[in-house]
Each structure stands twice: as structure tokens, then as C-alpha cells.
């Protein structure tokens, strides 16, 4: 909690901090999802997260990355498959138990999904709604320990003193920090992170990813992180899962990602052509001036 809230872009996932607490795992088994009667979006995707493991999920637009995270939360109901959180199948839970399970899965959203007209503090405290009574929350009488924790989290994510600012006054990076604090105050066992850097500039993207991965290490959280930016995924996620047309086509260490695998995940256009928009300076890991040859930024 006491560490410097200003992120350092250079910090890597190897820089572990002390980890404690019980270990939680998430296992997604042959998940099938379709919207209405349309084409299936997920056709039997399986991913298992070991305790404390940070997994990056990559894939082209429409490959089913967001759907997969939303199906784990049952924001989309899966057609079939199992979602095991510490061995309990979430797909079988009734409403009340499901609410409790959702509380244990902290989610960080693409474009932050904050309530723009509410204050930073109110947005963070919405993370406690799973355990706060309706009338207490409606009258904004949150438990003092939750408020204390919220202040602590704001310090941790680098938003000290901004608790009364309205969220629509914040920058993109600040909003995502509020989203992170909101997810953490749920006391999640696993983090689901959906495109946390979408619409952020390269430097801010790196800061946000640094913050997320640091926090996972501090709290011993396993995390499944959707990323459209392959260099960013390689840099921050020790393990990468590649999704294509609703199926897992790669699952292995980030170091094993090569052109052949990228072709498998993204199709032939991903490799070989100059990919200027992909080779963002922040994501290239100092590989010299001629990067941008392919999607990896090498």
C-alpha cells in the first residue's frame, strides 16, 4: 500500500513483492457462447489460471476475448461449459450465490465503465455494493472501514486528493485508475481485465499495465487480461493465450510467441507487412530503430 503511486514504466512482472493470503484459481472449460441464434462467438474455449498467474488474452477483433470475460461473469450466459472458481461451477449458481461469486471476480473494463456524473469516491465505493445494504448505499452511508479502504486504494492508484472530483473531469488514465480501485475494493480473488489500455496513449497504457500487474503481485491475485496490443501483452503477461474465432489456438509462455504463432492467431496479414500502428514506442521493449516489421514490434 505504501509504495510510490507514480508508476515507473520500466517495472516488469519479475519484480515481485511479498505475496500472502489464500490462493485462488479460475478454470474455464470448453465454454460455448452465442448471441441469440447467431454464429457461436466462443466454441469450446478452455483456459485455466493457476493461483497468482497473470495471463494475457490476445486475438483479433471479434475473436471472442471480451465475450469470454463477460461470460465468466455471466454477464452473457454461456450455452455450455464450466467456469470453476476454486472448484465451484459458476454456471450452476442461483442468483444470490452468483452475486457473491461476481463480487469475488474483480473486473476492470474497456473504457473504464465509470458513472461519469458521480464522484471518484462514489465510483470506487460502488465496488462495495455487493456487501452494502441497499438503503445504506442509496443514502451514501458506506461502512467507515470501506471508506478508509477506498482512501487507501486511491492513494495506491495515484489519485490522492481527487476523491470529490467528478469522474467526467478526469483524464483517460485517471479514469482507468478509478476503475482499478473499484475492482480492488470488492476484495476480488481473481481479476478479469478487459482491454484496460483501449483509447489510452502508449505511455499511459504502460503505466496502467504496470499498476495492474504490480497490484496482482502485491495481492497475490490471478488475472486474465484481454489485450489488443501484442507487445504490451508480451511485456506484462508471462503467459499468453491466443484466441481465434472462439477457440484457443495458442497457450504458452510469452517468450514462445513468434511469427508463426501470430499468423495462427491473427491471420497472415499480421506478419511481414510494416505495422506502423502496432509498433508503438512504449511497447517495443527497446529493440532498436527498425522495429515495426510485424505485430510483435520486432
Amino acid at each position, binding site marked *: 500500500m505504501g509504495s510510490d503511486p507514480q508508476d515507473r514504466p520500466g517495472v516488469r512482472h519479475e519484480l515481485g513483492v511479498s505475496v500472502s493470503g489464500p490462493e485462488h484459481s479460475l478454470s474455464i472449460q470448453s465454454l460455448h457462447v452465442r448471441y441469440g441464434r447467431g454464429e457461436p462467438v466462443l466454441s469450446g474455449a478452455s483456459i485455466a489460471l493457476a493461483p497468482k498467474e497473470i495471463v494475457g488474452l490476445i486475438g483479433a477483433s471479434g475473436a471472442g476475448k471480451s465475450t469470454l470475460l463477460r461470460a465468466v461473469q455471466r454477464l452473457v450466459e454461456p450455452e455450455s461449459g464450466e467456469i470453476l472458481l476454486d472448484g465451484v461451477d459458476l454456471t450452476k449458481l442461483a442468483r444470490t450465490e452468483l452475486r457473491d461469486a461476481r463480487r469475488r471476480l474483480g*473486473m476492470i473494463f474497456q473504457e473504464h465503465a465509470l458513472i461519469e456524473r458521480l464522484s471518484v469516491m462514489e465510483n470506487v465505493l460502488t465496488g462495495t*455494493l455487493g456487501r452494502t445494504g441497499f438503503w445504506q448505499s*442509496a443514502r451514501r452511508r458506506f461502512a467507515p472501514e470501506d471508506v478508509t479502504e477506498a482512501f487507501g486504494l486511491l492513494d495506491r492508484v495515484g489519485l490522492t486528493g481527487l476523491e470529490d472530483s467528478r469522474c467526467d473531469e478526469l483524464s483517460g488514465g485517471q479514469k482507468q485508475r478509478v476503475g482499478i480501485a473499484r475492482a480492488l475494493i470488492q476484495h476480488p480473488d481473481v481479476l478479469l481485465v478487459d482491454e484496460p489500455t483501449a483509447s489510452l496513449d502508449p505511455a499511459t497504457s504502460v503505466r496502467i499495465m504496470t499498476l495492474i500487474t504490480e497490484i496482482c503481485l502485491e495481492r497475490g491475485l490471478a488475472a486474465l487480461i484481454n489485450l489488443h496490443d501484442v507487445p504490451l501483452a508480451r511485456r506484462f503477461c508471462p503467459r499468453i493465450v491466443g484466441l481465434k474465432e472462439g477457440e484457443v489456438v495458442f497457450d504458452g509462455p510469452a517468450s514462445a510467441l513468434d511469427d508463426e504463432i501470430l499468423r495462427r492467431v491473427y491471420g497472415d496479414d499480421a506478419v511481414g507487412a510494416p505495422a506502423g500502428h502496432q509498433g508503438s514506442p512504449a511497447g517495443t521493449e527497446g529493440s532498436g530503430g527498425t522495429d515495426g516489421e510485424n505485430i510483435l514490434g520486432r
Partner: protein
Amino acid sequence: MAAESDQQAQQWRPPRMIESATTRKLVLGGLALYGLLAFFTVEIDPTRIAEGLTRAAEFFGGWLRPDFVTRWTDIRAGLLESVAMTAVATVVALALSIPLGLGAARNLVPGPIYTASRAVLAVSRAFHEIIVAILFVAMFGFGPFAGVVTLIVGSVGFLGKLLAEAVEEVDPAPLEALTASGATWGSRVVFGVLPQVMPRMWGLALYRLDINFRESAVIGLVGAGGIGATLTTAFSRYEFESVSAILILIIGMVFVAEVISGRLRQRLL
């Protein structure tokens, strides 16, 4: 570039609503003919127009000499009654329209509740205030109570429908985020929906306050109390000076309401 300039200039016209020229001419000709025939079915009687003009002169003469004094007690009572009717009706209607508006939002409730709420809103908007007022005056007798009930019915339909539309347009992402953190339906509404629709809701309520005051003058004509009742009385006594005074006061009140609601809107939004 040179090759492009050699190409023939292409013509383009926007696609017409009716493609066939014959059909188009038939439709337009038919409309014109009907318009002409319809115009002649309205009986135009020169003597009545002349009489009307004389009466108009009389009326505008009175309009130029507004008399606030002679009937002041009646006028004041009527105005105060209208203001009270407006305030009570708007507040009660707002309280009723919030649950109805939430219930009539497809993105918040299951089908049956949606249909039921929409039905209630549709019925309350089905008739013009005047017809509703006639009905309630027949039920409850002359006076402001019938008027207040009329205004409530009209306002609930108006506020509920527009509120439901605002709710259906909210950004779904924060709602999903609230669901994902284990929030109940009530908390999702309080934290996800209401903050997003609040500015619109206040705006609508203020606008409806305005409408209700003007409406209270109208429904008074059919016996539902308020300044409208005073106005009809003055009219039927041919006291055009008092009528003029009342109309000026109504304009003044609407203007004051406009200024106040403008100020409030600035502070609330």
C-alpha cells in the same frame, strides 16, 4: 489525373420518394383537388366575419384597458389556486412517474412489467387534458380537486414516457460494471441509472411545471378550478377588461416560471 478529367461528367439526382412520374402526378393532383374541395366545405359567411371583427375590436379595446382592481379578489384567488394545483400535481406526478418510467424501460425490467408500465403510460396519455378534466369534473364535481387529478394524469404520462426513454438511452457499460461487482437491481438503479438520467429528469419536471400552469388555466374553462375558472366567469360576463388583466397575469406568471426554471436548471445540471 489527366485521364480523370477526360471522363464524361456524370449526372446524379437524389432518389425520389415515388419513382413513377405518372403516380407522382396523380398523387399530387389528388391532394390538390382534395384541398380545394375541403376548403369549400368550410362555410364562409361574410356577415359573421364582420360581426366577429366588431367583437374583436371590442375585445382588443378591453385588452388595452386591463382592469386588475374590480375583480381582484377573484383573480388573486384563481391565481393562487392555479399555482397550488400546479405545484401539487407536478410533485405527485414526478413521484409516480419515477417507478413507472423505470418500469417502462426495456433495459431494466422483464417483459410483463415493461408491458404493464407502458400500458399505464399510454392510457394516461390517451386523451387530451380537456377531455380528462371533463371526466373528472363529472366525477368529483367542480373545483380544483378535479383539476389537480387531471394535471397528475397528464403529467404522469408525459414524465413517465420521457423518463423511460432517457433510461433506455443510458450508457450500459456502468450498469454492467455494477452487475459485475455483485450489485442488486436496486443498487444498479440508484448508482447506474439515476445519476445518468437525473439532469434530464429535472429538466423534464421543470418543463412540466411550466406546462401544468398553462394547462391549469385551460382546464379551468371546463370547471376544474384555478385561474381558468376565473377567466371563464369574466368572459361570460363580457368583462373584457378583467379578461385582459387575467391574460396579462398568466403571461407574467409563465415568464416568471421560465426565469426561475432557467436558473434552477443551471444549478441542477
